[in-house]
């Protein structure tokens, strides 16, 4: 007996309302972009400079007390948050303190950190400084630039690869789906004000990779079916292809989500934001390969004559033998 999501190949009609789906996607992108414009991202020190100190103490964290102590130093904008995590021990009370980059300092100064540590030890003699990270404004500016370049490069490289392997319409569809995923992910981070640091950029690029993976599998089947059913309507062929790959899409999304959820719950608070981005990305990425990538393919149309010397072989890899 097997666990099967679909007893028979499913036959959903994805494209009867494809314009509505595209509209919904566009609307969500606008909401995400608006949230980004209005609220902005909660950048970590990687991107805006400053210092974070992670403290640990056997006693419960008293944010007001910490704040009062640090405020005496007049360091400008300070945020103190208590961190909770199921993996913490009972006597493990963790707080994150963030101090903005000090005016007129290109580099990092030890004095600021020392001063903060000193006043905290005064109010909490048993406090421990688990990690201290400082990034100067000079580097943080560059980091955000490199990060943006990385995302653009990745999308550009993918555009070219898909264009070479398929047709330009496929490439446009896939890339718009990617842009959709990236914008929605940034929107979620801005809306929920989750800390956005260097690791999130890695997550963003992984989402690009994953979403693409999904899109390419659907497109591969579209290409195959376009050869097989030369007379059928493009809408029908697309619908058939998505239904045929449905079982695989769900299976892979499930296994990936299982793994990610395990990491989200048990992996500790340090990488939770990172894992959250990827979980979100798997969901949007799966959605976008159907409702954005394929819908755009339908909108753009595609050449129907795929006849090659050997239409049956499908591709140049098919004869590789194990």
């Amino acid at each position, binding site marked *: 007996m097997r666990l099967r999501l679909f007893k028979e190949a499913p036959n959903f009609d994805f494209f009867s309302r494809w314009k509505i789906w595209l509209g919904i996607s566009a609307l969500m992108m606008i909401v995400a972009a608006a949230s980004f414009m209005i609220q902005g991202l909660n950048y970590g020190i990687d991107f805006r400079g400053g210092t974070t100190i992670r403290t640990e103490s056997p006693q419960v964290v008293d944010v007001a007390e910490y704040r009062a102590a640090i405020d005496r130093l007049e360091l400008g904008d300070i945020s103190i948050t208590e961190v909770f995590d199921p993996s913490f021990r009972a006597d493990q009370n963790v707080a994150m303190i963030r101090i903005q980059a000090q005016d007129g300092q290109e580099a990092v100064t030890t004095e600021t950190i020392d001063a903060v540590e000193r006043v905290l030890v005064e109010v909490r003699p048993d406090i421990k400084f688990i990690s201290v*990270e400082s990034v100067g404004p000079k580097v943080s500016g560059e980091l955000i630039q490199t990060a943006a370049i990385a995302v653009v490069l990745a999308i550009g490289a993918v555009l070219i690869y898909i264009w070479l392997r398929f047709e330009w319409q496929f490439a446009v569809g896939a890339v718009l789906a990617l842009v959709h995923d990236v914008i929605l992910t940034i929107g979620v981070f801005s809306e929920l004000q989750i800390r956005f640091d260097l690791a999130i950029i890695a997550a963003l690029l992984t989402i690009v990779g994953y979403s693409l993976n999904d899109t390419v599998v659907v497109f591969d089947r579209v290409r195959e079916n376009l050869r097989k059913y030369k007379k059928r309507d493009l809408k029908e062929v697309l619908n058939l292809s998505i239904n045929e790959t449905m079982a695989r899409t769900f299976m892979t999304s499930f296994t990936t989500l299982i793994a990610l959820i395990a990491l989200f719950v048990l992996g500790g608070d340090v990488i939770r934001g990172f894992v959250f981005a990827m979980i979100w990305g798997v969901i949007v990425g799966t959605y976008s390969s159907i409702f954005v990538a394929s819908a755009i393919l339908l909108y753009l149309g595609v050449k129907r004559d795929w006849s090659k010397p050997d239409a049956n072989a499908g591709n140049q890899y098919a004869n590789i033998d194990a």
Partner: protein
Amino acid sequence: MLQIDLWKRIVIALTCALGLWLALPNAFYGPVEQHNDAVAAIELGGATPELEAQRALWPDWMPSGLVNLGLDLRGGAHLLAEVKVTDVYANRMEAQWPEVRDALRALTPVRRQQSTPDELRVRLNDDTKMAEALEIVRGLARPVPTLTGAGSTDIDVRGDAGVIIVTLSEAEKQATDNRTMQQSLEIIRRRIDEVGTREPTIQRQGADRILIQVPGIGSAAELKAIIGTTAQLTFNPVVSRGTDENANPGIGNKLIPSVDEPGAFYIVESSPVVTGEELVDAQPSYDQNGRPAVSFRFNTSGARKFGDYTAENIGSPFAIVLDDEVISAPTIQSHIPGGSGIITGNFDVEESTNLAILLRAGALPAGLEFLEERTIGPELGQDSIDAGKVATIVAFVSVLFFMFVSYGLFGLFANIALIINVGMIFGLLSLVGATLTLPGIAGIVLTVGMAVDANVLIFERIREEIKTAKGPARAISLGYEKALSAIIDANITTLITAVILFVMGSGPVRGFAITLGFGIITSVFTAIFVTRLMVVIWFERARPKTIEV
């Protein structure tokens, strides 16, 4: 069709075995680490019974490459420093002034004028002699070897209303910057090596930055203190040389060991003739006989002291001492008046290069500015490792279970392949000596989830092909054939993003890119070769009339 040649089977099996073999040491992380440390210590300082015992914890013939743990997992300090390369220009101009003055002395008296630190302005008393003066000063220029070819000299000289302005040429600036960076790297490396921590990372980044990562150190402040200490270089007169480490040096002398000759000790006068602070430059070069040597240059006061001393002590040795160890003890061949000289000895080219670096490495050539510093406590690292382990195991078991209930026997094949897959990722990581970071662990977990994708694609395809009823063998073979293009395209695109992440990223992000990239390669390999081999072997044995996937 469902046939795999015997040699291909052997290659596939051997590849898996090799991957797992390389991954094996990671299962015994503690003992292997001690073994490796002991081997390194024995090579450096000779064997002790204690070290031998540690070495015996892991057999020598086994692979001993380990996956390095990143700072975020092991704890330690991270610094990004910017070297202020322009500091050096000012020193160079300082050293140039007496040279210019002396060269022009016969022609006309000169005065030095106020200027920015990176140029030298010299006023001529008699500005009708400008043309000749320029000629003479230009004659002081030395050629700079550049990639673009000949013709470049180290200084640019121009005249302006009775003032001669000397600046470093672009070619020389570049060469100087490069030297400054090399020296800084070398000094920092030496400083940190002295502390003796395991596997520090000291890398040049971009034109003028140095990345320093030291696992196991208490804090970034501590690390800065170590780097900040300057190496003490001195030139001392040698009293005698011997092999007795308990010899009485006598008043005003001290006994110090030699770096290159084990067991040799020198007795030198405590007060140095010249110190490294007065050294301006040291370069590998060749003596009259074409043997490798090191040429060096002092500043004015150093030159005077050194000149006087060498004039009086021709034929006797003096010691070049770095941090209370004798680097070399050459014999003074002749009076060295100009403040520059040459150290000869039993050098090969490499040794003379190293000695030149060491000589220059006395003190940091330029100031450091710290742009980024991070301290990660070992507790946080341990917590992250523990959490990562639990998460990975739970993720792994869930995926294995899910695959089995979905695909039965085929799921089992995929599961075995998945286990081999993760083993191979660790094998590859150990082989290239990659660093595992917390995002790297996330990369592995993600791979566990995604690695089944290739198998899922194949199995779903086989299910489809079974429906068109061509017999099980045909269905399996078609399933593999037709799923292949999707697998290749999908994974190449993901690989592209992993490569971009690797090139553009730094630190933890790079760690993630490496595990993701290796994960893609091994998962494609295991899906299209390993599970296929298992399916084929099973099929040959069982010869089923029908199959259920």
